């Protein structure tokens, strides 16, 4: 709150842009199975400029790796080890995983 007010003051008074740190969201993103093969890695930490949903996070990766988009309908997502809806908003420190159909057993 205070930081936001300060940023507003600096911007209006001195034309200084101050990044709103409170809106930076660092999340850990995991891929498994064939999704890992498609994106080329199994995990990374990502700084998001603003609060995003799991759907928007998937879109970030689909923009990087267009082939990923075709798997969207056969992927479920999890947030902090629980299955999560695609409209779930992410918080700093969240661990998100994109999971293809499971085949254990």
């Amino acid at each position: 709150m205070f930081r936001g007010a300060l940023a507003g003051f600096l911007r209006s008074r001195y034309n200084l842009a101050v990044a709103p740190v409170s809106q930076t969201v660092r999340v850990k993103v995991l891929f498994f199975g064939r999704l890992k093969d498609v994106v080329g890695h199994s995990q990374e930490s990502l700084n998001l400029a603003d609060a995003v949903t799991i759907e928007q996070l998937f879109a970030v990766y689909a923009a990087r790796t267009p082939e990923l988009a075709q798997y969207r309908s056969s992927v479920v997502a999890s947030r902090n080890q629980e299955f999560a809806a695609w409209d779930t908003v992410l918080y700093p420190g969240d661990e998100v995983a994109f999971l293809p159909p499971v085949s254990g057993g």
Partner: protein
Amino acid sequence: MAPPFHHEDIFQLVREPIDLRALIEHVRAPGDGAIVTFDGFVRNQSHNRATLYLDYEAYESMALVKMREIAAQLHEKYGIHRVAIVHRLGHLEIGETSVFIAVSAPHRAAAFDACRFAIDTLKRTVPIWKKEYFEDGAVWADGELPPAPLATPRAKPAS
């Protein structure tokens, strides 16, 4: 009040051969009258193609959470005594056990029903994946898409 014996249950992801005998002994107690086990092992073919070997991977932290949830359901729904659920990861040869479940209960009906529920639910909800290797290549096995919530009215922050 916590249901009895839950702390005696076993959930494991291992990279060595599973000791079936030890798990059966673990769930066995004087108050029980039945143990039902499920031994899932590597088949030598898939869709009429000869399998060379399999490789399993898991989202380990979440898989353990889901296995624990299955055990809790077994106690709640079937009144079992104990359960052991162990899944192996990594490279598995034909004939090797990939998953083993042992359920003990006072009577056989609960043990049979609970064991069936456990393997069916594991195959549908536990984040584990199997890659099948053949003479001419490898494929990720077809699987089941776990049921997930369709929409959240309000997401909660991480605790």
